[in-house]
C-alpha cells in the first residue's frame, strides 16, 4: 500500500495538470462537438485527480519546483507549485468539473455554439492551470493571452450583436491589460536581466523603475480583474454569455489575474510597495463593493444582477492589500483574501448555474418573470440561497471564513473603516439577493408555462453550492494547504 502511495506521490503531476486539458482540447477540436461532449467529463475528472495528486505531493513534500527543459532559471522557464497554487488548481478543476457537467446538458438543449464550447473550455482550463504554476514573468504573459483569447471566444459563442460587442469590449480591455503587463516585463528584464519571479523578488529595489513597473503591472492586471472603476467590460461579458460560460468567467477567470497580482505584490514587489499604493487598491476595492452592490440592486435582468455582484465581490479581494500593509494583520489579510477568491468562486459558479436554470425554465431573463420558480425549481432556488449565504459572509460558509479573517486583520491593524465598508457591503448584498428571492417566491401567474429541465442542471449547481458551504464547515483543510510555502512560513491564520 505504501509503495503504491509513494509511487503516486512521485508522479510528475505538474506536467499532467497542464497537459491533460490541452490534450483534451486537441481531441475535442479534431473529432468535433459530439466527441468533445462525450470526452469532457472523463477529461475533467482526470484533471481533478491530477490536481489532487499534486496537492497531496505538495502537502507531503513541500513546494515543488519544476525546471521545464531541465535548464532552470534564468536560462529556462521554471514552474512552481506551493499551497496557494494547488488551492487555485483544485478550485479550477472542481468548478470546471461541475460546470462541464452542467454544460453537457445545457448545450444538448440549445445547440448553437456547442461545437466550439468544448475546445475553448479545454484551452481556458489549461491556460489557468499553466498560469497558476508558472514562475516566469514572460511565460505568465503568454498564459494570460491564452486565457484572455479563450475567454473572449467563449463570450462570443452566443452570436448576436450584444454578445459580439461584449466580446470585443472584453478583448480590447484584456489586450490593453496584457500589454501594460508586458511593458512591465520588458522593464524588469531590461533592469535585472532575468524573468524568474524568485530572482526578480531578490533583486528589486525601491526606486523609479520598481514604482513604474508596479504601476504598469498593477494597472494592467486590475483591468483584467475588472477592479472598479475598470469594471466596464465585465457585466455585459459575464451577464450576456451562455450560462456555463458566465460561471467559468465569473468564478475562475478573474481570479487568475488577481492571483498573479497577489504573487507579484507579495513575492516580487514587496520591498518596493508603499502604504499609499496599498491603500489606493483598498479604496478602489471599497468603491467596487459599494458601487457594484448598488448597481446589482438596480438591475432588471437576473444574470446581470449576478454579474454586478461579481464586480462587488472582487472589491473584497482588493481589501487584502491595505490590510496586509500593517504587520499585525498581514497573515489574516492574506489568508482571508485568498479564501475569499476560492469561496466566491464556488458560490458564484453555483449562483450563475442556478440562475441560468431559472432563466431557461421561465424562458425570460427579467427578474419579474421569476414568479413560480420556488415551486417549480426548488433545488435551484435553494442552491441560489446557499450561495447567497456565502456571498453575504454569513456562517457557516466559505465567505464567512474569508470575511472573518479580513475583519480580524482590519481590527488587528486598527483600520476600522474597512470594517464599515464590509458591513455595508454585506447589507447591500443581502438586499439584492433577497430581491431575487422575493420574486422567485411569488406564486406563478395564471397560465405561466415552464420548460422541463434535466435534473443534472439543478444537481450541478447544488453540488457547487454545497462546496461553498463545505469551505466554511471544513476550513482547516484548505487553510493547511495554503500554509505550504506561504509568504509567512509556519504561521497559522
Amino acid at each position, binding site marked *: 500500500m505504501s509503495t503504491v502511495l509513494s509511487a503516486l506521490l512521485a508522479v510528475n503531476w505538474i506536467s499532467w495538470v497542464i497537459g491533460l486539458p490541452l490534450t483534451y482540447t486537441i481531441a475535442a477540436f479534431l473529432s468535433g462537438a459530439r466527441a468533445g461532449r462525450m470526452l469532457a467529463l472523463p477529461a475533467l475528472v482526470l484533471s481533478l485527480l491530477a490536481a489532487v495528486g499534486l496537492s497531496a505531493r505538495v502537502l507531503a513534500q513541500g513546494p515543488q519546483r519544476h525546471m521545464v527543459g531541465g535548464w532552470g532559471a534564468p536560462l529556462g522557464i521554471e514552474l512552481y507549485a506551493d499551497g496557494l497554487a494547488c488551492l487555485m488548481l483544485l478550485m479550477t478543476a472542481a468548478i470546471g468539473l461541475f460546470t462541464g457537467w452542467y454544460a453537457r446538458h445545457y448545450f444538448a438543449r440549445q445547440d448553437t455554439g456547442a461545437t466550439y464550447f468544448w475546445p475553448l473550455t479545454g484551452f481556458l482550463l489549461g491556460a489557468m492551470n499553466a498560469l497558476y504554476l508558472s514562475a516566469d514573468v*514572460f511565460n505568465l504573459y*503568454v498564459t494570460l*493571452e491564452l486565457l484572455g*483569447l479563450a475567454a*473572449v*471566444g467563449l463570450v*462570443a459563442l452566443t452570436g*448576436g*450583436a450584444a454578445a*459580439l*460587442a461584449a*466580446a*470585443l*469590449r472584453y*478583448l*480590447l480591455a484584456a*489586450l*490593453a491589460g496584457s*500589454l501594460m503587463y*508586458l*511593458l512591465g*516585463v*520588458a*522593464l524588469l*528584464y*531590461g*533592469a535585472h*536581466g532575468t*524573468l524568474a519571479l524568485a530572482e526578480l523578488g531578490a533583486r528589486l529595489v525601491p526606486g523609479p523603475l520598481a514604482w513604474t513597473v508596479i504601476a504598469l503591472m498593477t494597472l494592467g492586471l486590475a483591468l483584467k480583474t475588472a477592479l472598479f472603476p475598470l469594471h466596464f467590460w465585465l457585466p455585459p461579458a459575464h451577464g450576456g454569455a451562455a450560462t456555463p460560460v458566465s460561471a467559468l468567467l465569473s468564478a475562475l477567470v478573474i481570479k487568475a489575474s488577481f492571483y498573479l497580482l497577489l504573487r507579484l505584490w507579495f513575492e516580487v514587489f514587496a520591498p518596493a510597495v508603499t502604504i499609499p499604493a496599498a491603500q489606493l487598491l483598498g479604496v478602489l476595492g471599497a468603491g467596487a463593493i459599494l458601487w457594484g452592490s448598488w448597481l446589482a440592486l438596480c438591475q432588471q435582468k437576473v444574470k446581470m444582477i449576478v454579474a454586478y455582484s461579481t464586480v462587488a465581490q472582487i472589491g473584497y479581494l482588493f481589501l487584502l492589500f491595505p490590510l496586509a500593509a500593517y504587520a499585525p494583520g498581514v497573515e489574516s489579510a492574506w489568508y482571508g483574501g485568498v479564501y475569499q477568491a476560492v469561496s466566491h468562486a464556488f458560490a458564484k459558479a453555483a449562483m450563475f448555474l442556478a440562475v441560468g436554470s431559472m432563466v431557461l425554465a421561465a424562458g425570460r431573463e427579467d427578474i419579474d418573470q421569476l414568479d413560480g420558480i420556488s415551486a417549480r425549481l426548488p433545488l435551484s432556488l435553494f442552491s441560489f440561497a446557499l450561495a447567497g449565504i456565502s456571498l453575504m459572509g454569513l456562517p457557516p460558509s466559505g465567505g464567512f471564513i474569508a470575511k472573518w479573517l479580513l475583519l480580524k486583520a482590519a481590527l488587528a491593524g486598527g483600520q476600522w473603516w474597512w470594517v464599515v465598508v464590509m458591513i455595508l457591503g454585506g447589507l447591500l448584498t443581502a438586499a439584492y439577493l433577497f430581491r431575487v428571492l422575493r420574486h422567485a417566491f411569488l406564486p406563478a401567474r395564471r397560465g405561466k408555462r415552464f420548460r422541463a429541465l434535466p435534473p443534472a442542471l439543478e444537481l450541478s449547481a447544488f453540488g457547487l453550492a454545497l462546496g461553498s458551504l463545505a469551505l466554511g464547515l471544513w476550513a482547516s483543510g484548505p487553510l493547511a494547504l495554503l500554509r505550504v510555502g506561504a509568504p509567512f512560513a509556519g504561521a497559522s491564520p
Partner: protein
Amino acid sequence: MSIGLIYAVTGALLFSLGLYGLIVHAHLIRKILAFNIMGSGTFLVLVGLAQRGGEVDPVPQALVLTGIVVAVSATAFALILARRLYAANGRCTLPGEGEA
C-alpha cells in the same frame, strides 16, 4: 546613448501613442491599429532596453517573435469580431462610444 536605448525610448513613445489611440478612438479598426502600435512599442522596449549595452541578447528577441505571433492572432480575432458586429448591427463602434 546606445542604439538599443534609442529604440527603447521610441518604444515608450509608441506605447503611449497607441494607448492614447486605443482609448480615444471609437472606430473599432482604429482601436485595433492602435493596439498594434502599442504592441510594437512594447516589443521595441523589450529588445532595445536589454541591448542598451550594445551586446545582442537572443532571449528578448525570441520573446518578441512570440509576441508578434500573439499580436497577429489577437488582431485577426478582433477583426473578425468587428466585421461580424458590423454585419449584425451596421456599426463600427461599440455601443455607448458613438460613431466617430
